[in-house]
Every structure is written in structure tokens, then in C-alpha cells.
């Protein structure tokens, strides 16, 4: 090596290699960025490490139980009778089942309920139930006669007037 060769060496003589290398990195990053933009949902990370759009998708699921407010729009007479009795806080669909379809289209009529099955779900005597809750041994009490023969389900009077009305008809 001639003396002084090192001092005059052009460090950037082959810099073109570096630029090509850097360009590869830039292209790789752009490809990564493009793929990431494509596969990561737009709302991911909006509120946290999850897809925020999932919240609105879950909120858009269909409702089966219309809610007692929807029932009371049309059935105000029954709601009135119910509000005076012991079943005031039992909502309509707790017995009648899901009625969204009926609320949307009143020609779809709900199925008739069987009070021999329905009432005992709550009122069958059991030592496990709170003592203050009205309970009855249905077999001894009714012997298979449907409860609504004597009791009015919407306002089960406790003074015997419902039973008397039942006897009369």
C-alpha cells in the first residue's frame, strides 16, 4: 500500500450499496405497513387492546323480550289491574314468555299458558323458599285443577273475592 493511501481513501465510494440496502428496508417496512393496515381492523385500539366495532356489533343483536313497557302500551287495562295486586312487580313476560314478535305484529298471538305448570314454578311449597313468600302444596290444594279456575293471575286477590268469582262462573 503506498504511503498516505489510507488518508485519501474515499469512504463513500461504495455508498450505493448502502442506499440499495436502505431501500430494501424501506420497501419491507411499506409492505409490513400495508399488510398491517389491511389485516388489523380500523377500530382496533380505539378504546383498548380490542376491536371497538365489536361493541356495536354486540349491541345490535336482536331483542327477544320486549319489556313490560312495550306490553303496557296496548294492554293498559291488564297493567292497571296488575298494579293494584300482589303481582304488581311481576313483569308480563315473566309468565307470558318472550313477546317481541307479538309486540311488532299483534296478529302473532302468544300461546295460551297452562297455570297448572306456571304458578307452581314460583308457588310450590318448599322449605328452601323464603318463609314470607306465599307457597302452596298444589297437589293437596288443587288436585290438578288449573290455578286460574279460582285465582285471577293478574291480580290474585287475597281476600277470597277471586275465588268467589271463580265459583260463580
Amino acid at each position, binding site marked *: 500500500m503506498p504511503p498516505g493511501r489510507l488518508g485519501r481513501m474515499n469512504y463513500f465510494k461504495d455508498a450505493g450499496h448502502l442506499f440499495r440496502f436502505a431501500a430494501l428496508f424501506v420497501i419491507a417496512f411499506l409492505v409490513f405497513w*400495508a399488510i398491517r393496515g389491511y389485516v388489523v381492523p380500523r377500530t382496533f385500539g380505539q378504546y*383498548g387492546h*380490542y376491536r371497538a366495532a365489536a361493541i356495536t356489533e354486540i349491541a345490535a343483536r336482536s331483542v327477544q*323480550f320486549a319489556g313490560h313497557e312495550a306490553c303496557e302500551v296496548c294492554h293498559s287495562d291488564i297493567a292497571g289491574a296488575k298494579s293494584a295486586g300482589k303481582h304488581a312487580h311481576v313483569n308480563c313476560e*315473566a*309468565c307470558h314468555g318472550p313477546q317481541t314478535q307479538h309486540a311488532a305484529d299483534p296478529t302473532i298471538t302468544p300461546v295460551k299458558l297452562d297455570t297448572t305448570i306456571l304458578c307452581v314454578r314460583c308457588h310450590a311449597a318448599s*322449605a328452601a*323458599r323464603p318463609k314470607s313468600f306465599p307457597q302452596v302444596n298444589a297437589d293437596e290444594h288443587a288436585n290438578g285443577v288449573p290455578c286460574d279456575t279460582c285465582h285471577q293471575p293478574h291480580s290474585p286477590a287475597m281476600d277470597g273475592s277471586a275465588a268467589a268469582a271463580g265459583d260463580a262462573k
Partner: protein
Amino acid sequence: MNINRRQILVLLPAAAVAWKSVLAGTPESAPNYQMSEHWWGMLIDIPKCIGCGNCVRACQVENQVPDGYFRTWVERYHVTDANMTNPEVISPDGGKEGFPAASEDAGKYFFVPKMCNHCADSPCTQVCPVGATFVSPDGVVLVDPKYCLGCAYCVQACPYGCRYIHPQKKIVDKCTLCYHRITKGLTTACAENCPTGARQLVDLKNPRDPIHAFLKTHSVQVLKPQMATGAKVYYNNLDGSVR
């Protein structure tokens, strides 16, 4: 219009990202519902529960829960005087069709409805490896069905046993606190159908919600408080034998 190769290389990824945004669209937000104005929970009033199973049936109908799986269920405890720490607990078919009659016996009976506690610091959301389950800004623990892989880490992590793998979808399913109802101004299916009012949806951010007065004046407990999950299902008069 002349575009050289270099320009195309720059434009293609940008166009792909832009197109993805167009496809995604703006997420539809429920009218009049502001997530930031709510912090949902539930109050379960143990002395009011009669074990009729109405909540379990209502939940299964409302949320199409497969038979044999439960987003909510009811347990019946039987605690005898001599055996406080070892109660007899039954939950036949989740209490869906009620319970066998209990004869007058020693000790006490009571019902404990159970469901997702919608924990503020939930262990289940922390273990999800893909960000498929999360606590929403209004305090409801949800599962993104499009992201869930069904790895069941969260099923193991839940201290309350409130998650299951859906037998057909093969992804995790759980109580959503009827998110599709509460965001429309309705209450949950279980609370709507509870005949005694033992279950009540509560909004802790609503200053007019009666829960605030209730919490001040009643003995209220959450399940497994020692795990510091920030559970938001409040049990009134919960017996010490319940775990």
C-alpha cells in the same frame, strides 16, 4: 397521467390502507347511548330469590344459550348448623326448571343466582392472547366473536366459572349483561323476568339510580372479594358459606 414504477410502489400500499378504511366504514353508534355515561353492574337480593329459574330460562331464550350451558344459573345452598364451611350446593340443570322441594330440615336454605360479575379488573380479559375479550368503556365484559380463537385461557382464568366454549361455534360465550338490551334502554332479560325483583340492573354512574342508597343501607358483598377482581355483581345478605 404518467406514473412510473417508483410512484406505483409508493401508492399501492397507501391505496390498500385507504380501501380498507372504506370497507370498514364508520361504526354505527346506538342513538342517545353514550358509553362514557354508564358503568353497569347488577344487584342480587338473596332474600328475594325464590329459586323459580325464570332468569335462567329467560337468559337462554334471549341469548340463544345452548342446552346444558349457562350464562346465568341458580344454586341452592343448604347450610346445616354444624357444617358452616361445607354447605350442600345443588343446581339441577342450572336451576332452569326450578328445584326439588326441600322438606323442613335442619339448617337453612337459600338460593344464589350466579352470572358473570363484570369485573372492573377482570382476570379473564387479562389472559386473552388476541384481544378478543375486554371490559367495555361502560363496564361490561364482552367477547368479540370474530376475534376469539377458542383457546379457553379465559375460561380457566375466570374465578367464578362464568365462561364456556360454545359447542357449535367453538368460541367462548358468556353473559353480556344483555348489552343489546341495556344500550336500548331495556333491562337485562334475567332482571326483566325475575318475578320478585331479586335481580336488578344497576348503573353506578347514574346518580339517580337507587343502588347508591341501597349500598349505603344494606349488607352488600361481592363474590371472592379477596381476589380483587372489582366484581360488580352485588349480593345483598350473602351468607358467609357462599363461595
